[in-house]
């Protein structure tokens, strides 16, 4: 079964990660804000690095100050020996990351997890990103822009104008904002939920073969999933689960998925870090 088609059973039962992960140290070369809420961390390695959009890495501090668990971050960019991440400071780990100065060593394990699927050559795609859900979809868009024959509509929801990394985004993204505060001159934003913005776009309703790729907070993912299923679109979601290892050994990151192979209505625990983080929305057994 190819990643291009929506799976008939859970996709979670098929293949292994796309490429071997490496455990290594990198060196911070930049760690700077790109918006009021997001920072960009650029790490340099000894040898060239690569990834597939949707994959993530586990990052940690080096040496004695290592956190017990590394933290998962979507990979945003990789070029030659450098890889970059976009992150938001939320707790202890991201605070520690934030304190790293250029030159600091960083422990890296990646790339990990399954990337977004490849759409059919001219399949139209809708990207829906919210907050720190941006990096994997921005990475996807960077790869596909100019290559993918189908339409691509990209939507990004943020808190306000200051929360949007305008310089990184270019002009391909439709922006929705909780508040129009801090909108820079010459920039546009739609006020409301990003999924409502997508729903309001009548022109997107015209085709059933559209593929939605979404990443962001759970309410966004649920709304994207509902919208997609109402329109008959396939929908792939990148989930954020708490992770202990990121490479499938601890079972600390499970997500309940439908599993027809276990009988009708059977639900099993999928391992978010290796069977995901990208899941077909239809497979997910949301508990709400």
């Amino acid at each position, binding site marked *: 079964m190819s990643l291009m088609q929506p799976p008939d059973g859970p996709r979670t039962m098929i293949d*292994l990660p796309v490429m*071997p*992960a*490496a*455990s*290594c140290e990198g060196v911070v070369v930049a760690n700077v804000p790109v918006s009021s809420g997001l920072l960009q961390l650029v790490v340099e390695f*000894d040898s060239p690095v690569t990834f597939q959009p949707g994959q993530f890495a*586990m990052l*940690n501090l080096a040496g004695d100050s*290592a*956190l*017990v*668990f*590394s933290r998962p971050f979507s990979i945003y960019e990789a070029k030659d020996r450098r890889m970059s991440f976009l992150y938001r400071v939320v707790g*202890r780990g991201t605070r520690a990351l934030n304190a790293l100065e250029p030159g600091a060593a960083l*422990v890296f*394990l990646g790339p990990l997890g399954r990337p977004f699927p490849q759409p059919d050559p001219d399949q139209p795609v809708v990207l829906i990103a919210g907050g720190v859900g941006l990096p994997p979809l921005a990475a996807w868009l960077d790869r596909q822009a100019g290559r993918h024959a189908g339409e691509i509509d990209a939507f990004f929801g943020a808190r306000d104008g200051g929360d949007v990394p305008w310089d990184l985004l270019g002009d391909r993204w439709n922006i929705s904002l909780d508040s129009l505060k801090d909108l820079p001159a010459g920039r546009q934003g739609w006020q409301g939920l990003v999924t409502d913005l997508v729903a309001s776009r009548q022109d997107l309703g015209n085709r059933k073969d559209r593929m939605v790729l979404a990443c962001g907070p759970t309410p966004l993912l649920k709304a994207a999933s509902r919208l997609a299923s109402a329109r008959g679109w396939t929908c792939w979601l990148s989930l954020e*689960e*708490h*992770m*202990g*290892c990121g*490479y*499938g*050994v*601890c*079972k*600390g*990151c*499970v997500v309940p998925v439908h599993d027809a192979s276990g009988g009708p209505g059977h639900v*099993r*625990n999928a391992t978010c870090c*290796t069977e995901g983080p990208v899941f077909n929305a239809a497979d997910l057994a949301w508990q709400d």
Partner: protein
Amino acid sequence: MSLPGWWTIDPTEPFTLGPRQFPGRIWTASGCFAYGLTGHEMKAEGFSSPYQGVGAVVTKTVTPQARPGNPMPRLVETNEGALNSIGLENVGFEEFLAKTLPALEEMGVPTVVSLAATRPEEFGDMVSRLHQAAVGFVHWHGVEINLSCPNVAEGGHDFGRDPDTVAACVRAAREYLPDRALLAKLTPNVTDISGLATAAAAAGVDAVSAINTVVGLEVDLKSGRPVLPRRFGGYSGPAIRPIALAKVDEIITRAKVPVVGVGGIGNDRDALKFFALGAVAVQVGTAQMRDPFTAARIAKDLAGV
């Protein structure tokens, strides 16, 4: 680190434990490296694989029936430690026997199978079936019976706290395991761990593994409720190392039973502390989750004699 003068062992050389020779003394601990089939294809400079130099992988604990495990969240990080409440999620003994064990043999992973059950007879059954299924397997070195998992409501907890039960389980397993190493993994959540070790030794183990996780709890400040749905979790990582060292020392000096040391080991220095007290081998748990090469790195660093 420069190795201390008293350290004279190469932990990547074979050593004998009971009826069996193990390829090395640095192992991975149960539950922190899955079944030992993950990560073969992973890369790190200076290593052919995360298994390089590793003496054994202790598998995730396998129970007679498959288990879905506990609800999420299952992990909490604390100061220098972690609480887990995985709930022994595992594929179950049948699938382990049919698929996992042969795969381990095929990939050449030195294996210790971790087993848990709620009655001594079940240990006997599983071990005997394992033994039949693994005839001719050269990489399967032993069984670690997990008498200590504090996360399973009906099983491990109170179970492994009683020396008589420990003895009964060991005896049941030993009967069918004449030619592989038999280990009992002990809980630290008891008044007298050396009493458990003495019971296990009398019933025939070749060594005890100490320690499993310490019962712990973390509170979510916002809600004022425990973070883990089951309230308690198993505490592991650097924070429990002094407790593990104390328990290991207690067992070695009082019960005089060979010990495989576990608890808070993340680097060569940590491992050396257990060896200093007389441990015959060590296991890497939580630190293996951060980096699949942790055990391999320790083995390499300590082999530099």
